[in-house]
C-alpha cells in the first residue's frame, strides 16, 4: 500500500519512473566539478539502495536509479554531507540538510572544464556556476543554465535558457608585434576575421571580435595580452517538441555582476508572467508570449551593463518547427 505524494517526491529531486514503486535520485553537481569523496556517498546509495549503477546526466549530474520509494527518507539522511559540501558550502541556503534536495525544477548549473584545465578558457567556469547556483537555487521554475569558458562553447551554452560564455578583451601593444600574422590568420580561420594587417601591425575590428582570446594564445611576443574579462549571455535556446532552437546573443561585453543580476531578475520575470494553468512552462515559451521588450524591461532592472556592454534590441529566434504536414 504505497501512498506517495509525487509532487513532493519530484520537488525532492526524485523521479516517477516506469518501474512502479521505484524512483531515481538526481544528484546536482554545480559547475560540473566535485570532490571525489562524494563518490563514496553516491556509490553507497547506488549499491545499498539502487541498482548498483548511475547514469551520468546531460546536465553533469548523477542519476541513481532503482531506488525503492520507501527508502527516500533514509537516503536523504545519507545525502546530508553531500548537500552540506556541495550546496551549503557554496552559499546555497538549505534549511534541512537531512531532508534531501529542497527543489528540482531549476536544473543543475553545468559548466565546461574552464580555466582549471583548458588553455582556451577565459575564466574559472566552475566558480561562476557556483555563484549562479547560489543566486537561483533552490527554485521550482524549470530553467536550464550553463557556463562555458570561451566561444568554443563545449558545454553547449547555446542549448540553454541562459548560456554564459567567457570573453576577454585583447589588449595590443604594437611595439611588441613582430608582424608574424599568426593572430590574424588564426582569427580568420577559427574565429571571426576581426583582425587585419595595416602597415605591418594588427588592427582589431571590435564589432566583429568575439573576445575568444585566440589571438592572445597565438602571439609569440605577448603583443596581445589579456585585458578585462567579460561575458556574452545567450538566451532561450531549447530542445523539446514544439520549436527547438539555438540560443541567441542577448548581451555581450558585460561583467559578472550584470550576468548574475540578469539571471536573478529573470526568476522574478518568470514569477510574474508564467502561465499557472500549465503544470510547468519553460521560460522560453513565456518570452514567446510576452515578447522580448517585456523580457528586457524586467531582466534589465538595475543592471549595469558597463561602458562596453551591448544589449540586443531585437532577436530573430527563428528555430525549427517539425513539419508534420509533409508526411
Amino acid at each position: 500500500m504505497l501512498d506517495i505524494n509525487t509532487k513532493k517526491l519530484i520537488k525532492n529531486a526524485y523521479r516517477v519512473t516506469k518501474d512502479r514503486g521505484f524512483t531515481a535520485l538526481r544528484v546536482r553537481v554545480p559547475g560540473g566539478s566535485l570532490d571525489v569523496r562524494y563518490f563514496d556517498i553516491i556509490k553507497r546509495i547506488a549499491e545499498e539502495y539502487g541498482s548498483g549503477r548511475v547514469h551520468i546526466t546531460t546536465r553533469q549530474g548523477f542519476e541513481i536509479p532503482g531506488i525503492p520509494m520507501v527508502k527516500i527518507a533514509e537516503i536523504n539522511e545519507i545525502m546530508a554531507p553531500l548537500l552540506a559540501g556541495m550546496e551549503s558550502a557554496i552559499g546555497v541556503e538549505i534549511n534541512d540538510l537531512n531532508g534531501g534536495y529542497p527543489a528540482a525544477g531549476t536544473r543543475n548549473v553545468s559548466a565546461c572544464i574552464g580555466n582549471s584545465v583548458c588553455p582556451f578558457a577565459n575564466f574559472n567556469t566552475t566558480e561562476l556556476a557556483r555563484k549562479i547556483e547560489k543566486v537561483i537555487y533552490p527554485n521550482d521554475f524549470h530553467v536550464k543554465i550553463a557556463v562555458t569558458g570561451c566561444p568554443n562553447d563545449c558545454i553547449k551554452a547555446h542549448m540553454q535558457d541562459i548560456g554564459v560564455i567567457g570573453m576577454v578583451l585583447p589588449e595590443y601593444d604594437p611595439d611588441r608585434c613582430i608582424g608574424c600574422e599568426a593572430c590574424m590568420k588564426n582569427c580568420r580561420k577559427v574565429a571571426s576575421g576581426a583582425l587585419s594587417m595595416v602597415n605591418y601591425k594588427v588592427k582589431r575590428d571590435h564589432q566583429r571580435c568575439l573576445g575568444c582570446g585566440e589571438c592572445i594564445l597565438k602571439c609569440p611576443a605577448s603583443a596581445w595580452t589579456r585585458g578585462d574579462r567579460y561575458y556574452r549571455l545567450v538566451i532561450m535556446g531549447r530542445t523539446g517538441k514544439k520549436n527547438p532552437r539555438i540560443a541567441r546573443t542577448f548581451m555581450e561585453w558585460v561583467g559578472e555582476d550584470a550576468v548574475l543580476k540578469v539571471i536573478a531578475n529573470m526568476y522574478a520575470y518568470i514569477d510574474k508572467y508564467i502561465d499557472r494553468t500549465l503544470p510547468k512552462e519553460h521560460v522560453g515559451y513565456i518570452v514567446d508570449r510576452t515578447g522580448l521588450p517585456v523580457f528586457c524591461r524586467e531582466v534589465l532592472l538595475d543592471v549595469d551593463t558597463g561602458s562596453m556592454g551591448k544589449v540586443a534590441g531585437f532577436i530573430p529566434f527563428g528555430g525549427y518547427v517539425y513539419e508534420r504536414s509533409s508526411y
Partner: protein
Amino acid sequence: MGVYIKNNSFDQLLTELSRDYIITAPVKLPGKGAFSDTPLVTYREIRGAGEIEFNEKSRFSPKEIIYPITQTLFYFTENEYSRPAVPDQGIIIFCRACDVHAFRRLDEIFLRNGGCEDIYFAELRKKVKFFVMECRESFENCFCVSMGTNRLEDYDVMLRVSGDAQECDARGDFAGIFTGYGEAVEMIPRFVEENHTKVTVPENIDRQVFKHPLWEEYSSRCIACGHCTVSCPTCTCFTMQDIFYEDNPKCGERRRVWASCMIDGFTSMVGGHGFRNEKGDRMRFKVMHKIYDFRKRFGYNMCVGCGRCDDVCPEYISFANCINRVNTIASGVSAHE
C-alpha cells in the same frame, strides 16, 4: 665591494639611481599570461625594488631593452629625415648570468660582425649596467653549466637575496653609492654549478647530420609559431619595414622589427620561392646556428643555455634534447668514418 642592504634602503638606493638611469627588471604581471588567471614574467621599467621578480625566470629576455622588438630608425617626410631621440640616462638591467653572456653574443653580431658597427645598437649598449641576480638554484630547463655560461666575471653589481635584504657586490662607481645604503660584508658571488638538464654539444658536425631523418620528425611536430626564437636572448634577426602613414602617405618611418627563422616568410624571395619551407629544415637551421655555425665564425657557441625556448614551446619540443640527439648522431657518424 660587498654591501649588505636592507630592502627598504635598497628601494631608496634605486630611487637615487633612477635620477641617472632607466632601471629595468623582470616583473610579474598578474593576469597577463597567455592563459587566463596566469601571470607573465617579463621586462619593464621599474619604479621600486618591490616590483622586481627575483624568484622566477622571465619569459622574454632583457635583450628587448636595448634591441627593441620594433625600433624606428628614422622618420621621413618628402625631402627630410630625422632620427628618434635617444634617452640621456644610462640603463640598468637586472638580469641573470646567462643573460649577460647573451648580450656578449648580441655584441658579436651588432658591433663586430662584418667589421661595421650597428649605431642603433651601439648607442644603447654603451649605456648598459648589469645588476646580476644570483641564481640560487637552476630553474627548470636551464643548461647554462653545459654551455659554460653559469659563471660570470663581467658585471657591475651582483645581488643575492638574503632574507629581507640584498647582499651586493658593487663595482666601479656603484661601489661608493651602494656603501651609503648598507654595511660592509664579504660578498663572493656563487653560481649554479649543476642543472637538471645537461647537454653535450658535438665538437664537429658532419654534413650527414644535415640530411638525417631526425629533422623530418620536427617537420611534423613544429608549428612554426616562433615562440622559441622570440623568447631567445641570443636571436638577432630582424626585418625592415617602411611605413607610410595612413593619414598622410608623404610621411612615414623606417623600422626594424624582430624576425624569426622558424616563422613562415623568413626565407621568402621575389616570385614566392622559399628555401626552408619544411619546419624540420627550420629547426635544423636554428639548432645549427645556435651550436655550430656561430661557433665556426666566432669561436664559441651562440646558445647560452637559458632554456627559454624549452619553457615556451607549445608543442613540447625540447631544444636541449635536440642538441643531445644531434650529438648522438654526430658521434655515431664520426665513429663510422
